[in-house]
């Protein structure tokens, strides 16, 4: 069994699976149960400044997108940061950390944008023995209206300023949690790095309205006949999160900055994908909120099994392994040619590939007697839609070797060439 021990910016955990700062990590009771279930680390639900605690709504806090069989595909919340007194949280953090010294315990923070507020809270966190802090610059609902959360995360200068305060007033490792509600995630990441952040974590939730009640004509979740936007997470956001992680991992300005990956991690495979794109640890929330803490057992066994098969002895062997393969469109090989191939023995003759191709793509699938669907190589542009919609995964892409004639173009498959040198590109560099 592969060793999953993780050292993320000096914070050690027996595995890379951390619970994200969220409702599951709001109090000692849950966090102890999480550690008992096997979670390698926990980011404690965001603490605010001392004073009257935050209040939450007393109606529904979550909205949902369901897949088939009411599978939770996306979750949206309008819950704010912890609504329990600061002293209670600090006391519980200290107690838990004392009992679970081998697990990572990071404290998420969100206080007003002034140096004294940050200085004060940091000193109190240090007393708990926690391993580090995560700066919540991400929550897009509620707190943002008060100048915190994503209101900070959307202004790189603020990120840099606050991060610098944190690094000035504390020796604890500092993770800056980024909001996806921006146009270019590299800018806030660069700001965090300039401010001295040890790492970034992303993504926080995406601003969203998950559904509209068509009787009340009101967004859901509905609070006394009104609704508001909330933060979206769960499996549906994973592709967005993966891209943002990859952009930071491969950008020259932030390359090498440790990343804790967040966004729809539901299985070991999701986690491995984040790690391959550069995440040194992953954080999970929706999967735990859907299935309970036990899901981590599958993540641990699955990642371990995968690493064994690959011959990886440490998670470091996996982290960042796919980053060199992320490129810009302009560098993709335009001469690489594949054709869809339908395995007739495995085909169940549903015809979805045909409907998709005929109605919405390139009319490259024909129907022969007996509901036999056959790819027309002379029309197939290898768009992959047939594979994507096939319910039994019986279609594959076959690569045409260099020199073979592509029946669609009538020309032989040529060697690597990309857009930068393509004759149709007005900006192409003249071959020298």
């Amino acid at each position: 069994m592969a060793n999953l021990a993780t050292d993320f910016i000096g914070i050690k955990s027996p595995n890379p699976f951390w619970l994200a700062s969220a409702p599951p990590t709001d109090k000692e009771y849950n966090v102890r149960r999480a550690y008992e279930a096997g979670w390698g680390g926990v980011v404690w639900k965001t603490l605010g400044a001392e004073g009257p605690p935050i209040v939450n709504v007393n109606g529904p806090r979550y909205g949902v997108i369901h897949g088939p069989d009411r599978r939770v595909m996306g979750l949206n919340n309008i819950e704010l940061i912890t609504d329990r007194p600061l002293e209670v949280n600090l006391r519980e953090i200290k107690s838990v950390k004392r009992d679970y010294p081998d697990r990572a315990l990071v404290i998420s923070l969100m206080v007003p944008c002034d140096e004294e507020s940050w200085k004060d809270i940091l000193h109190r966190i240090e007393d708990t023995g926690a391993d580090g802090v995560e700066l919540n610059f991400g929550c897009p609902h509620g707190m943002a209206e008060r100048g915190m959360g994503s209101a900070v995360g959307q202004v790189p200068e603020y990120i840099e300023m606050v991060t610098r305060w944190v690094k000035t007033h504390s020796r604890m490792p500092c993770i800056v949690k980024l909001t996806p509600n921006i146009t270019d995630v590299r800018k806030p990441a660069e700001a965090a790095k300039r401010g001295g952040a040890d790492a970034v974590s992303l993504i926080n939730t995406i601003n969203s309205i998950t559904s509209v009640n068509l009787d009340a004509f009101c967004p859901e979740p509905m609070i006394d006949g009104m609704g508001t936007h909330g933060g979206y997470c769960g499996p549906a956001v994973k592709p967005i999160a993966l891209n943002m992680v990859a952009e930071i991992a491969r950008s020259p300005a932030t390359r090498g900055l440790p990343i804790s990956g967040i966004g729809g991690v539901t299985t070991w495979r999701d986690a491995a994908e984040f790690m391959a794109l550069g995440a040194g640890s992953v954080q999970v929330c929706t999967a735990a909120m859907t299935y309970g803490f036990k899901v981590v057992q599958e993540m641990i066994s699955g990642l371990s099994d995968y690493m064994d098969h690959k011959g990886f002895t440490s998670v470091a062997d996996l982290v960042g392994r796919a980053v060199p393969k992320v490129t810009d469109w302009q560098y993709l090989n335009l001469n690489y040619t594949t054709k869809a191939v339908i395995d007739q023995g495995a085909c169940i003759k549903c015809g979805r590939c045909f409907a998709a191709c005929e109605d919405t793509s390139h009319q490259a699938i024909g129907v022969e007697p007996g509901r036999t669907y056959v790819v027309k190589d002379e029309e197939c542009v290898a768009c992959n839609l047939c594979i994507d919609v096939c319910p039994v995964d019986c279609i594959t892409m076959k690569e045409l070797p260099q020199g073979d004639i592509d029946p669609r173009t009538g020309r032989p498959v040529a060697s690597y060439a990309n857009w930068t040198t393509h004759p149709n590109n007005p900006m192409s560099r003249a071959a020298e």
Partner: protein
Amino acid sequence: MTNSQFTPGVVPGRLSHDSYCTNFSDVAPPLDAHQARVESDRCYFCHDAPCTEACPTSIDIPLFIRQIATGTPEAAALTILSQNILGGMCARVCPTENLCEGSCVRQTAEGKPVEIGALQRHATDTIMARQSHPFLRAAATGRTVAVVGAGPAGLACAHRLAMHGHDVVLHEARAKPGGLNEYGIASYKAVDGFAAREVAWLMQIGGIRLIDDWQLGRDGVLADLVGDYDAVFLGMGLSGVNALRLEGEDKRGVEPATGFIAELRQARDLAALPIGRDVVVIGGGMTAVDAAVQARLLGALNVSIVYRRARAEMPASAHEQEHALANGVRIIENAAPVAIHGNGAVREVEFAYTRRGALGLELTDQTFRLPADQVFKAIGQTLGPMPAEIALESGKIRTDALGRTSAAGVWAGGDCALGGDDLTVTAVAQGRDAAEDIHNFLMGA
């Protein structure tokens, strides 16, 4: 003295009162809303779906399932009923494993088709519970059509004609409309008087007048119908029963399975219905299974279906056969009756094993006897007396692709007409299509 399962002879009341209620309850209880949603999620929404191709009434099955999945079961019901006005009954009695579900791609993929029949019932039950009829009649055309037989074919034909604005006079030989839905299928497939409720719901379209206890040939002749009405549709089904043509067939206790099923369906008190201790059903179709299983449910101790060919060749579907076996019916294959023994009443049936010979099925000299105090014949039904002007073929009314018979102005469909399987759903399709052709004919299209 009370009777039990062990009482010899043909006697009523073999079971406790509660057993009758349990035994004759809904054989396939309806899906609730959650089950329907889970099941509807399984549909792949196939292109030119094989299930629709397999449906004799061509219901757009992927569409209606998607309508259920998206929370609009009444829209789903309209998709069904616009093709098959008896979609509620078909959801209960169709041999779906041979039709839509048998061709479902998930049957190919995982051996478990989408439960199309159950979903169809969910949709049609939902709309029928609304207590209003969803279809409207077109403007009155002033034309009137005679429909003979208020079974599935006649009802489908009458409804479609009424929708097009024609008036219909529906002539039914029995006391109640519904045909085999009312008299000819197992009770547990359509509980709570569903057949009668469905007919009443269908008739809400308006413009259909029912004349019951009216038999063609006895109470009127075809020539008069042709003279009195603008068109005639014949859908009287098959009223005769094939005979075994055996010595002893006239003994007491030997009767057509269809008669037994009809009597059971109309019985007010199942405990009062006599049933044999040892029952033998001869035949291999749905009627044989319905009779055999219901005999068991009435308390018969030993029930055997004896079929002259192999089980794989039985017209009853594999699902029906499994149902019989699960209810304790014994299926004996490759045996044909050769004699019926008894003194006044049947006591035994003698069978010979069969084999496939050069000239077809032949009897071997290996014989056996089954004790029997009741024998149900289920070896097929035949057309009753027909007017001379109607040409027959293979013992059924010959029709063209549009349902027209050899007589001008006379159409036919359902079991009495040649072509298609003798299924409720096929009868509905033929009745509906004949109505469309009658409509075109009447409107001069």
